[in-house]
């Protein structure tokens, strides 16, 4: 063995090996690098390194109009793009002091939950995949594809939806949407059931998940965990419940909460939340009110195309919004919504022009990655895999 490349000497406690896990590694989705110091297979030190997917999101947003930010937000947590869209729209609406229409609220709730389902399915499936249970992964992905078909149906794209608009939505639901959902619903239930039966009680799976990557509630709070990861540690914090927005105060759903904060709890939180999302969508579809999807504020919402084509008033309105951008009053706002991974915050500073002066995203998994070393140190290399997965770090979101 050549000296300096790596050393494996017997006997001494001190002899450890450094292993670069990533950035190019099958399990480090979204290119993350973990500099591991290993004692045998035990991780004694973990130094996560992120930023390989940094795209200058916040810098770009500062030179985009308020509307042009939407395509960028699609690419934050790219597994649940709708939630980012809505989170951002919600923040700007808060700054503009606009209350969106009831129908828009319900549609946002529905599509947000569809996105959340796809996020949870991905997390569960990818976790299974990385534990080598390939079939479970593909079942989950099949379910996710059905959900993305719905994305495509109403927004025109599966992933880069750009569906929300400030003051409402790009378009109403299609007429067939409810029919489509009725067809998809039983299949998603079937897939969730299949995943549950394949894994939840399987001892191989339990051994891998239980007791690994655990974090206490105090630590989780201290590190700024939110979402399923915080709830798995036993803290029932869900923005949808604690600070309801959209139509969440009008639907009935439960918040699954774990007790130990280990991988198994995180997996279960996601699985059970998926069922809750199904419930929410069904309720919203049943109570979906009629009416417009966009608010009646001409300075914010683009006029109808017919008006643009045929009247100078509509044309002027259209032009002003396109070339100047929406004029958002100067001020600052912090708005928070529950994204797939936890509290997705937008801190926006406007100087009263068509571009944001500062647009900060609080990516939920950023703070969770900040605590991951605490969760994997002392465990084995193999434990990093389910831990990293149940945290559900999304590269686009953490690196922006």
């Amino acid at each position: 063995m050549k000296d300096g490349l790596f050393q494996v000497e017997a006997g001494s406690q001190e002899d450890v090996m450094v292993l670069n896990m990533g950035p190019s590694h099958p399990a480090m989705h979204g290119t993350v690098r973990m500099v591991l110091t290993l004692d045998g297979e035990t991780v004694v030190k973990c130094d996560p390194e992120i930023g390989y997917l940094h795209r200058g999101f916040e810098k770009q947003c500062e030179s985009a109009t308020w509307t042009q930010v939407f395509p960028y937000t699609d690419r934050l947590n790219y597994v649940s793009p709708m939630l980012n869209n809505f989170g951002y729209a919600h923040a700007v609406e808060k700054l503009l002091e606009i209350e969106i229409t009831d129908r828009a609220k319900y549609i946002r709730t529905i599509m947000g939950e569809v996105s959340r389902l796809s996020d949870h399915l991905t997390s569960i499936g990818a976790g299974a995949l990385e534990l080598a249970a390939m079939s479970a992964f593909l079942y989950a992905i099949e379910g996710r594809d059905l959900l993305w078909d719905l994305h495509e149906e109403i927004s025109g794209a599966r992933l880069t939806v750009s569906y929300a608009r400030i003051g409402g939505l790009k378009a109403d639901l299609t007429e067939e949407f409810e029919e489509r959902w009725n067809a998809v619903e039983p299949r998603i239930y079937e897939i969730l059931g299949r995943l549950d039966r394949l894994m939840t009680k399987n001892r191989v799976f339990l051994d891998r998940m239980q007791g690994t990557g655990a974090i206490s509630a105090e630590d989780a709070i201290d590190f700024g965990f939110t979402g399923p990861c915080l709830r798995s540690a036993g803290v029932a914090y869900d923005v949808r419940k604690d600070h309801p927005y959209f139509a969440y105060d009008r639907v009935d759903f439960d918040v699954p909460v774990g007790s130990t904060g280990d991988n198994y709890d995180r997996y279960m939180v996601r699985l059970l939340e998926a069922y809750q999302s199904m419930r929410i969508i069904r309720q919203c579809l049943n109570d979906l009110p009629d009416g417009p999807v966009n608010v009646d504020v001409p300075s914010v919402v683009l006029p109808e195309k017919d008006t643009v084509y045929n009247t100078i008033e509509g044309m002027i309105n259209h032009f002003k919004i396109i070339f100047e951008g929406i004029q958002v009053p100067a001020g600052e706002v912090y708005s928070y919504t529950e994204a797939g991974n936890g509290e997705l915050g937008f801190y926006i500073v406007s100087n009263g022009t068509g571009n944001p002066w500062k647009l900060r995203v609080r990516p939920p998994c950023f703070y969770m990655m900040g605590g991951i070393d605490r969760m994997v140190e002392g465990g084995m290399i193999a434990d990093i895999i389910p831990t990293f997965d149940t945290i559900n770090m999304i590269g686009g979101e953490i690196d922006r």
Partner: protein
Amino acid sequence: MPTATINGKEVTVPRGTAIIRAAAMLGINVPHFCYHPALSAPANCRMCLVEVEKARKLEPACYLKVTDGMVVHTESEKVVAARQAVLEFILINHPVDCPICDQAGECKLQDYYMAYDAKPSRLTTGKVGKVKVYPIGPEVVYDGERCILCTRCVRFCDQITGTSELTVVDRGDRSEIRTFPGRELDNPYSMNVTDICPVGALTTRDFRFKCRVWLMTSTDSICTGCARGCSVHLDHYLGETQRYRPRFNPEVNEYWMCDEGRLSYKRLNANRSGALRVGERDDLSWPRAARMIAGALADAQLQPDQIAFVASADASTEALVAGHEYALNILRAGRFYWTGRADGEGDAFLRCADRNPNRAGLVHSFGEQILERGADRLLKDLKSGGIRALFMMSSALPFGREAVEELAAEARKLDIFILATSHAGSLSSAATVSLPVAKHSEQTGTWVNIDGVAQTVDAAYAPPGVAIADWDVYRRLAAGADAEWPLDSVDAIHARIFSDEAAE
């Protein structure tokens, strides 16, 4: 000195001041179309109606003079309702033209509609069609449908140029702007009407469809077309100047500029060269090139009398000061010449016969006597021999193409011919060394106009290729010669210029 209260704030103004001016003093903008501070106020657009307490109806702010104790509201409910009504009326016959209208983006109608009305029209009848793309003058195109008949253009021709080409013809909703029979809008200041037109009715042929205004960035600059040095807004997009618009400067040009100057921006874009060439090599870096130039000058072992330096009346004062320093202490030139554009036609308003923007700066840097040694003299001296090395600043030449070729032919015979230039041409291909320099839109510079008004402007965009600011050229050449150089920043040069002035 009457004192009035506008929107709750008191203001004291000279007698005879219109409410709109008084409001402007308080920073309150009263929307208007027909009113222009340099023109008379006909109060025909009715957009500036404001509520004056104790008056029976709303009053035009552009026309009504402030009287003592007047209480004015410019944003009251009544006023806003009136503005909405005015806008609705104006828009009744306005075509759906924003996509093809050059004014879109800086159009008052758009601004006010979004600010005050933003309501759909109640109009159900068709719009009145009028003339489109009407060539009202050689530089200006008229669109009758977009015109709101504010008559600013008519008043401009009456009151500013005194040429009176324009008038309103027809009545009611068929009214249009026209020239008097047999005439054209062809005075040397005709393009100003497009600036003052609040909508897209009058547009310039030059800028027509060239670039959308919202895409451009505007930088405050000056026009270098003549010694007047009118203040302009230099609008540029993607590193290219798209147009000049006059910028209000009461000391120089007020609100106006001449057509010739307005079109002089074209020189900034034509034939630009950003390549640095020494001999046959054009892949050199500035430090390397500077060392080679210094080496070549040292090797040639020239007497001061064999070295000539040609200053330019086009260049900024910074460039001239730095050039002077370089010529005296590093180049050690013994002969000084100057070049610049030949005189043209002038008039009593803005246009100067002297077409060089900085003759004053030239005199300031090189002294009065240099004016006697112009381009003709340079050509003559070159022909008579004696000059072996020539350094020439970027400049226009006062004579025609043939004479330029002649000069180039003479320059080819020299041992060393260094040309600092921003354009590619026969002279630059004749040069042994061609140094790329920035235009005035690309560097910080101070220009002194015919009346001695100095204006400092900043770079609007980056120069092409490896071109750099004039003063920086001399700094780098000095560094190449390992010489001491006191003027290593714009600030240092400014310190020298303004301390000189203080000493005088």
